[in-house]
């Protein structure tokens, strides 16, 4: 147990963040239990799902905490596995043919390791273009060499989308650790914590505001549960949450609020774009990996859109 004491003594802000998140989860768990108790013999699907979501959050926070203990390597491994799970869900729901086998194999077995190795190597000049340039060109070549032209453009486009959505964009989260920000050395994990807390906080707060006050549907054809009240309430409170967390970032309070607003907006757009893809593929959830939440992509959709923009804004303004 001494390492916990050491960590507390070091007063690393990450420790306080995790204690804070833990406290919120304790409260959420208590509320969930109380709701279930009051529901009594009439089990409600919403309350069951809420409690499943909270239980899954405990696991996700524990996994992220474990990855943080191992620094860059841990975060890279975590997101490489997240990419693997996400890509598996994405490709499962997209139409492929036998002629796609080698293109598929290269995305899984070359694309994922290569991209995360380049991030590990901190080779910005290559990891920021490797998949969008070389991967983009390589995939149709491999597919064409197999000679099957049925729905060729459609099949290649699906795969290129999967590669960008499931590997390239999520890889920008561990890449945050490779930014050199003067006066912020050794605190890169907190940049990730800020992103994850704001983007997931925005999702959770939109859910809470939507359940409590939601009346006007926002985009019924995309996502029946999204409401204007949920969006405005969630984004506003998550932006305030981001501003309140300015002390863990290299940003000023105002800049932290701005960053949080950008993150929330992109997270929301990520959610509706990924919903549109799901509707197109005729499914409600991407998979069943995370109980109560659906699949890996259901939990990751907002991070996917927010991470690259947050990375580049931070890099442009704060890294010389």
């Amino acid at each position, binding site marked *: 147990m001494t390492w916990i004491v050491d960590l507390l003594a070091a007063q690393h802000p990450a420790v306080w963040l995790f204690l804070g998140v833990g406290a919120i989860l304790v409260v959420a768990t208590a509320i969930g239990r109380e709701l279930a108790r009051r529901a009594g013999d009439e089990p409600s699907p919403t309350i069951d799902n809420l409690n499943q979501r909270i239980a899954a959050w405990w696991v996700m926070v524990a996994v992220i905490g474990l990855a943080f203990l191992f620094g860059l390597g841990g975060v890279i491994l975590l997101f490489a596995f997240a990419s693997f799970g996400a890509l598996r869900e994405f*490709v499962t729901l997209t139409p492929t*043919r036998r002629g796609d*086998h080698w293109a598929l*194999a290269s995305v*899984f077995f070359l694309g994922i390791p290569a991209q995360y190795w380049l991030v590990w190597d901190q080779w910005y000049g290559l990891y920021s273009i490797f998949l969008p340039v070389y991967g983009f060109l390589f995939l149709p070549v491999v597919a064409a060499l197999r000679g099957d032209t*049925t729905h060729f453009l459609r099949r290649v486009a699906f795969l290129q989308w999967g590669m960008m959505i499931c590997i390239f964009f999520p890889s920008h989260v561990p890449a945050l650790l490779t930014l050199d920000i003067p006066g912020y050395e050794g605190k890169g994990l907190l940049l990730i914590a800020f992103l994850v807390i704001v983007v997931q906080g925005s999702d959770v707060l939109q859910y809470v505001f939507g359940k409590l006050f939601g009346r006007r549907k926002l985009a019924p054809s995309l996502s029946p549960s999204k409401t204007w009240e949920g969006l405005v309430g969630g984004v506003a409170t998550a932006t305030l949450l981001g501003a309140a967390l300015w002390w863990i970032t290299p940003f000023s309070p105002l800049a932290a609020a701005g960053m949080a607003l950008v993150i929330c907006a992109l997270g929301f757009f990520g959610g509706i774009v990924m919903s549109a893809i799901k509707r197109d593929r005729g499914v409600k959830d991407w998979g069943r990996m995370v109980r109560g939440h659906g699949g890996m992509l259901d939990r990751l959709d907002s991070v996917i859109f927010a991470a690259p923009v947050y990375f580049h804004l931070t890099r442009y303004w704060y890294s010389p």
Partner: protein
Amino acid sequence: MRPLVARATRRLIAGFARAVTGVSADWRGCRPEPRHRVYFANHASHGDFVLIWTVLPPELRRVTRPVAAAEIWDGPGIGGFIGRQVFRAVPIDRKGVDRLNAAMAAMSAALDEGASLILFPEGTRNTGDEPLLPLRSGLFHLAMAFPQIDFVPVWIDNISRVMPKGEFLPIPLLCSVTFGEPLAIDRAEERNAFLDRARDALLALKPEDRIA
């Protein structure tokens, strides 16, 4: 030593199947109860019985044996070891003169001993574009001989995309195993009527096609 290796291999194979395919079970027409059953499924790859076996709860795994081709799973070498020791397969000779009677005798003996079976009534792997090959009559004869047993239709989805014919590298895609409602057995039913019903029960579990 051997049982230990067999148990470790069993864990390893099930773990690998889960890691690659994230396989999930959908008990749509029955519960995962320890009842005396014959699970009959569509057959598209060598990984099929592994997937069914992986999603069964441990107490069902212990009593469930796959019915498998003798030339692969009862020969010398690694196939034989996996077939006999790891999965305790019921070997079926697909080449002999009296193969229907021999197969019936082997399956009946296993059922009489109290085992549940995993059976692929297409008789061979389906590598074509048809969702299901014509069912062989063995399923019918077995149902007539054991009308008190649950004959549970099982649809294995997506494994043919994980491992297309002629490829050696599996693509990790999500697979699912859907268990349907047990067939009602009427001993007066004609062979073809029964097999048609079994076929419809299987196809009813098949999810929407995702091949381009």
